[in-house]
């Protein structure tokens, strides 16, 4: 290596694209290009919309030619596909799933039910607006949308990812207090998940003015260790305790 430094002309990134990193112009554009072509899809089949996914995935419409594959676990998936009505009980599981997914993560709400409750609009047990509880990148309305519509929606998401605009997952960190407040309104103020979103926001430089607030204060107030230390004690140690 010589003393002379290699000069690479680097175009600074645009703040409008949501990046604070000036090198976004090069590396992130490349990674966005690759990311948009390799999407793993976690289909959380909450309702009837799931029935349109097998034809979309298999030989008839073949989503794999676009680089989209189904994935079995949330930790390895990029897209969370919520396919149908979301009951309050289901939403709890969706939140646990969503928070487990590694960033960047994208959420698509399929069917009218995720938009406004759909045909379950007057049900006490069905959540109406999915994007109150987690940031949704895209809705594909319809009851149910045909596989073509699902694929067009996914293509639009791919375009969005490639353009660096699919960044609503950052909103979950920046406005965590809002989302948590909506979740607490349904699940009670003692609601907590295994994922420490606030710490993640600090770690990944996504801490925003809306990250902390009254709802996260409640979260910290009721925070409990997830696994209670309960190693069984036998023999003389137990006798000591009993004495």
């Amino acid at each position, binding site marked *: 290596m010589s003393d002379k430094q290699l000069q690479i002309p680097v175009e600074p990134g645009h703040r409008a694209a949501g990046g604070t990193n000036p090198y976004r112009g090069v590396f992130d554009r490349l990674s966005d290009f690759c990311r948009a072509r390799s999407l793993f899809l976690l289909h959380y089949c909450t309702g009837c919309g799931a029935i349109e996914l097998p034809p979309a995935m298999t030989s008839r419409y073949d989503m794999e030619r676009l680089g989209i594959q189904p994935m079995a676990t949330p930790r390895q998936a990029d897209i969370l596909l919520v396919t149908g009505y979301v009951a309050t*009980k289901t939403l709890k599981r969706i939140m646990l799933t969503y928070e487990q997914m590694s960033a960047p993560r994208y959420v698509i709400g399929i069917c009218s039910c995720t*938009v*406004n409750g759909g045909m379950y609009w*007057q049900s*006490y047990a069905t959540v*109406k*607006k999915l994007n109150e509880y987690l940031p949704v990148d895209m809705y594909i309305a319809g009851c149910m949308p045909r596989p073509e519509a699902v694929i067009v929606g996914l293509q639009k998401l791919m375009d969005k990812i490639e353009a660096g605009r699919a960044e609503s997952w950052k909103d979950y960190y920046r406005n965590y207090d809002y989302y948590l407040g909506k979740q607490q309104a349904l699940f009670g103020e003692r609601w907590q998940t295994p994922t420490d979103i606030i710490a993640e926001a600090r770690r990944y430089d996504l801490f925003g003015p809306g990250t902390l607030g009254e709802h996260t204060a409640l979260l910290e107030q009721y925070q409990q260790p997830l696994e209670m230390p309960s190693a069984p004690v036998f023999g003389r140690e137990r006798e000591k305790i009993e004495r």
Partner: protein
Amino acid sequence: MDSGKELASWLDKVLEDFQGVQVRRKSTSRVRVDVDADALPALLELLQGRAGYVHLSALSCVDWIDDDEFELVYHVWSYETRSLVSAHIRIPRDPGAYLSVYDIYKPAAFFERDIFEMFGVFFEGSPHMEKFILTEWDGPPPMRKEFDTRKYVHDTFDWQQYNPEWLQEIRAKGGGIVE
């Protein structure tokens, strides 16, 4: 088929002897029995022990708010005669409690727990009366007629602005979403 008819007429005779019972035969395989609430456990015991109605296929509840009564319907099925007996009882809405038939039909625990959650009818002697399906729910039992689900929904949830072109076209013609 003849034996089925014979069994059916035999069942009618057995039920005629039972006091406080009104039997309405719908077909060879369906009988509706209206019975006093006190006599129901004895009737079910008779049906299960003597007539082979070993399968409690469902236990349903109807809220007759104008009569101030709950109706409980016990559907029991016999594999031998291939017929269903629906035993209907009425219990007062207040306090809305009844005896469990868990000791006669074990699957009753499942249905009773469900009805307690949805209608608030307490079954004395049922082994599990805690939350079942609505684990995130602390409101009133939602299937009771006095529970206004539409009001609850409007109070609890917000709505998305959703006014696509096709809906505007329908509205222009005088249609639209009907509540």
